[in-house]
């Protein structure tokens, strides 16, 4: 199954459940409160997913390592390499 199909499957499953409760398709005579909670649920889910995404990306950006030591180490090694290569007869 491709990722697209997985997603479509997941979305339609949730959609079906939502319709079932919101419009009481099976005549289960669910309490009114269930329906009231259910109908704006997709929007809530979307908004909370958006918040989760923003928070995750924000957190990861904030904690992203700035590898300054790596850059300094590299610069030193470049100097060393150039000197050594010149000794070995490399013409740049």
């Amino acid at each position, binding site marked *: 199954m*491709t*990722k697209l199909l997985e*997603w479509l499957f997941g979305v339609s499953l949730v959609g079906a459940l939502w319709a079932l409760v919101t419009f009481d398709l099976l005549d289960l005579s669910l309490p009114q409160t269930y329906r009231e909670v259910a109908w704006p649920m997709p929007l809530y889910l979307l908004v909370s997913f958006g918040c989760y995404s923003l928070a995750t*990306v924000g957190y990861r*950006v904030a904690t992203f390592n700035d590898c300054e030591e*790596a850059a300094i180490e590299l*610069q030193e090694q470049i100097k060393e*390499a150039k000197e050594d*290569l010149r000794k070995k*007869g490399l013409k740049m």
Partner: protein
Amino acid sequence: MASRKTSYPNRDGGDKYSVLLPTYNERENLPLIVWLLVKYFGESGYNYEIIVIDDGSPDGTLEVAEQLQKIYGEDKILLRPRAKKLGLGTAYIHGMKHATGNFIIIMDADLSHHPKFIPEFIEKQKEGDYDLVSGTRYRGNGGVYGWDLRRKLIRFHFLFFPLSPSLINSRGANFLTQVLLRPGASDLTGSFRLYKKKVLESLVERCVSKGYVFQMEMIVRARQLNYTVGEVPISFVDRVYGESKLGGNEIVSFVKGLLTLFATT
């Protein structure tokens, strides 16, 4: 019986690592990356070879490579140039044809990938007999040097700043891809990886994308084919010399590639 030994080329210490270095206008960087590779392979004692695949660079990268071959020996530095600039995927196929190692390491020749991590890749591979080991900027001590805050983000970037290729490598793009594809690896667009030769051969055969998406497709397809993936945190130092070669169209092809993978894997 000693002569029988050679029929087990891959027994314990017998592993050989072929480093593929596709180059285009890397005259300044190539000697440095080769020097570092020789240094770290020498220190760790693993058997290796470096295969330089130059795509007809006008800046004379090939001449520099020839000098390096004289310095370090023809068994260590192999030159497999091509007449003109062709895709990255075909560069790997081309390089692999001539590789004598049972493992292949692919990395950028622009010094953003440091050879000091290669012994860690090798140890990691041995630890779990992984089919591929991928360097990751997004885990453990991994990270990036030379990106400002803007380059680390994507969502806001999309809205407020002109698009630039670096954002494809960003946190936002990576998150988006993670959500859509759930590939089971933390760094999808990185290209510092170690593969079992057979695994790379079968992956390259299947991968059709170009540019950044190629790296992503490789790891996504690896998961699809149930190959095992190990990860090693790496620091990524953005290009020291020379311009990044990626154009603005990269973002369009990234999105296209992402959607293609989404629909086909």
